[in-house]
């Protein structure tokens, strides 16, 4: 009559210890998974954090982009483009690689003098009269679609800075 603690009983209820054991194991593993997710989330695996901060630089160093590696659909993310080269009274920056099909520009500072499209690329021209070498452009973006987005930022004939962003659904 006396059974061990872990054997299945048939009375008063029919129970299946295999499932209970399985459930317990899932819970044990699941708890660690949840803790790991919280820590990774705090570190920025799901955008905005240490893991998410990325920076890309064009081969000749003209353009440097600080961006977020991870983004989420319909939530804001920032990008800063730094332009460092001798210019006359205006310079231009081209954002392309098909990025703007998936990224919507929410804010753009400073305002460009001119914005034109070349294919699906966007070329922005900024004034740089009486300023030094170093310029920065701040862009607020909102991803529209999940998945991988390839972005390239270039200026005139300079080689582009290329990077990719991963957008979570």
């Amino acid at each position: 009559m006396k059974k061990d603690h872990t054997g299945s009983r048939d009375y008063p209820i029919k129970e299946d210890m295999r499932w209970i054991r399985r459930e317990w194991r899932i819970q044990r593993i699941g708890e660690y998974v949840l803790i790991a997710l919280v820590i990774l989330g705090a570190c920025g695996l799901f955008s905005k954090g240490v893991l998410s901060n990325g920076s890309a630089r064009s081969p000749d160093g003209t353009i440097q982009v600080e961006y977020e590696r991870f983004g989420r659909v319909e939530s804001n993310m920032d990008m800063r483009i730094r332009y460092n080269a001798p210019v006359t009274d205006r310079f231009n920056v081209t954002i392309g690689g098909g990025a703007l099909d998936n990224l919507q520009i929410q804010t753009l500072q400073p305002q460009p003098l001119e914005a034109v499209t070349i294919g699906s690329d966007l070329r922005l021209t900024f004034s740089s009269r009486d300023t030094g070498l170093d310029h920065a452009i701040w862009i607020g973006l909102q991803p529209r679609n999940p998945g991988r987005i390839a972005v390239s930022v270039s200026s005139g004939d300079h080689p582009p800075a290329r990077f990719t962003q991963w957008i979570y659904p």
Partner: protein
Amino acid sequence: METVLRAAAIYLVLMVVFKIAGRRTLLQMTSFDLILLLIISEATQQALLGDDFSVTGAALTIITLVTIDIVLGKLKSRFPMVEQAIDGGPVILVENGNLLTERMKMTGISPDDVLEAARSGPGLERFDQIKYAVLEVNGHISIIPQTDS
């Protein structure tokens, strides 16, 4: 399509998270847990509807959630395996006054929880007055008292 996918994804996430949290959460529900549930619903709401303020969107979300529930219910009654996997089965915690400690550890129920259920239910004081204590699927502990011989 997006609305349906959103609702299904949220349903799945909530099911998995609450499965991991276990039945204990239901049993030891305090007023703070109630507040926590309200916050969870608030956090869910945005992802469910996004920036969709239309009646159609809300209706579609509600219909999707209820439909998933109905379909899962049908699957559960058709295939007992599915029910076992999603809901789990009842577990005996106390047998003829003996504590089955291994099982209590697995389900996260302490002897105090069983005694509390014994007091609030049939008004029992000690373990030897309990014939069976069963942790039910809904997270409540049923107490079957020892019949006097």
